[in-house]
């Protein structure tokens, strides 16, 4: 068990290194334009460009730049802790800005996760147990529609229908409501539409996925044994079937949470939620390269971390993995 974790950690370190390298390559090596100009934002003055070039050491060779970049990121090598870059447009350090917005993104993500698990998993299980019935076909059909719709379209439709300022049935706070809301419940109310919109596609995916897995699992020999032992059908399906079928879902969940924590860009943009995702979006419209670079790196780190967590968790769920 300890060896397993150690091996995973080693891989994670390597992975983080490679991700940093790739991010560096994308933002520093790939662009054909002058890196200083690219970072300076809109209509920079020549002095600003020169200052940037000096500050970021852009005149040095690429490998040296890379080493500096790593040095900035790691807390003990750099001068002032984790330094993910500096946004010249907003005149602020990137990482603190990201961390400022993290709680909002976490709030959005967690709400959506709970919602999609509560909706998607039961639907998947019921569909698996009642394969081929009208319920199954209907559920999977609706699921497919939600998977096929872009989340921003769903968001716009949801706002059009339900937003209390512009909607056809004005019952829920519209976009821009989050920033104006105060208090936990105020903010939560403002997030109801975004939660549902974000959860819709995921619930559909999870329902389909669990359905497929459970159908396959219920064909396994140990299910036949469980029935031959005289266990109740509920025990067979849940204790034996779902228990075995749910393990890949845990992996998937970790991955999805990791991705969302890096910023649910599309949802946050449509609903004007000031999370990491919208921060990245604003940076894109303003061509603020350091911020984009920082958010990409941050997002990738989160995913790697969540994957590691999930892998470790997996060893607890599946005893065969420990050895």
């Amino acid at each position, binding site marked *: 068990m300890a060896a397993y974790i150690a091996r995973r950690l080693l891989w994670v370190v390597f992975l983080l290194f490679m991700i940093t390298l790739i991010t560096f390559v994308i933002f520093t090596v790939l662009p054909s334009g002058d890196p200083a100009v690219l970072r300076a934002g809109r209509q920079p003055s020549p002095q600003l460009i020169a200052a940037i070039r000096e500050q970021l050491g852009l005149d040095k060779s690429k490998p040296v730049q890379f080493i500096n970049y790593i040095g900035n990121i790691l807390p003990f090598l750099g001068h002032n802790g984790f330094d993910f870059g500096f946004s010249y447009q907003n005149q602020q350090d990137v990482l603190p800005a990201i961390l400022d917005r993290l709680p909002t993104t976490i709030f959005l993500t967690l709400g959506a996760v709970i919602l999609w698990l509560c909706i998607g998993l039961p639907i998947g299980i019921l569909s698996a147990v009642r394969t081929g019935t009208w319920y199954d076909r209907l559920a999977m059909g609706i699921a497919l529609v939600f998977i096929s719709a872009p989340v921003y379209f769903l968001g716009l439709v949801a706002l059009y229908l339900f937003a209390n300022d512009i909607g056809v049935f004005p019952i829920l706070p519209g976009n821009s409501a989050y920033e104006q809301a105060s208090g936990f419940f105020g903010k939560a109310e403002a997030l109801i539409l975004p939660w549902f919109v974000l959860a819709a596609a995921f619930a559909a995916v999870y329902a389909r996925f669990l359905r497929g897995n459970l159908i396959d699992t219920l064909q*396994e*020999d*140990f299910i*036949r*044994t*469980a*029935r*031959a*032992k*005289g*266990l*109740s059908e509920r025990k067979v399906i849940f204790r*034996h079937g779902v*228990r*075995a079928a749910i393990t890949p879902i845990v992996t998937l969940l970790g991955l999805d949470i990791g991705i969302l924590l890096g910023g649910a860009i599309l949802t946050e943009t449509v609903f004007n939620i000031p999370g990491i995702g919208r921060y990245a979006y604003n940076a894109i419209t303003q061509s603020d390269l350091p911020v984009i670079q920082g958010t990409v790196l941050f997002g990738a780190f989160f995913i790697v971390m969540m994957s590691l967590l999930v892998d470790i968790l997996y060893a607890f*769920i*599946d*005893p*065969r993995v420990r050895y």
Partner: protein
Amino acid sequence: MAEPLLEVENLVVHFETDDGLVKAVDGISYTVERGQTLGIVGESGSGKSVSSLTVLGLTRSRNARISGTVRFDGRDLLNTSEDDMRGIRGDDIAMIFQDPLSSLHPFYKVGTQISEAVLAHRDVSKAQAWDRAVEMLTLVGIPEPRKRADAYPHEFSGGMRQRAMIAMALANDPKLLIADEPTTALDVTVQAQILELIERLQSEFDTAVVVITHDLGVVAEMADEIAVMYAGRIVEKADAMTTFVGPEHPYTWGLLSSIPRLDSPRGEELVPIAGRPPSLISLPGGCSFHPRCPYVREAHKRVEPALEPVNGDRSHQVACLLDSSVRKKLWGELQQGAKPQAARNDVLEEEAGV
């Protein structure tokens, strides 16, 4: 004579599929007495597993068409509700399967899975159920049973896993144990151990046993009675001695000849049964074995043989259109080492001569 423990009469199990009607079991009858062992022998696709799964009610699905009678301890199992069947499964009738690794849940400890079987049918505490699990593991000969109960199935060796499955099946002291290919997935040396274990436990607890296998060798020692199945029907039914000494169905002869023997002369070829098992959707007309039978005659392609006693002896029944005397002659020749074609020609010559 006491009433048989299990009485199967004219059991028919058909499945409706997209490709057609699969006649998995096409009218079989057999009985199992208390404390006795019945061996059901046949190739894959002969319907041997399906018939036993149906006894336990595990083939009830939307596309299954089941008819006939299954009487267990006086109860009509085919008409018993699902809830009541659950009370019988794992308690009065238990079943073990071919591959113990895939038949045990990979995520639960062995002890947990055995106690689960106990708790489903007995009103005891979790600790008592666990104790019973350890007790059963000891009974089946697993060393360090208390430690082993805490382990997972993948940590057991193949033979030990099958012992654990047997322990789980016998935990509630069933009246009937059905063993579906219990040794097929095991090494040869371990096979003997498992069979011996089943035999020992059977005599200790007076359990009736049905052993399903494709290997006549497996039931040679254990079975009191043997039923040979082919294409969903029983083609021969007799006590063990008769099956090995005086069988009267060409399929049984084929099965016996295809067992490699240590005492057969060097260089002697194995005699396999020609052809392949038929599709259960489109069975051949007449006798379903006729495409593969070396002794087939014209009439056999049109007439279906019924399972009938040999010379009025109800304990030996055969479904074959050949005369019993002809069959005895053929078997006599085969026993002396003749090849099927040769035996057939000899008999035909004799008949022509008469």
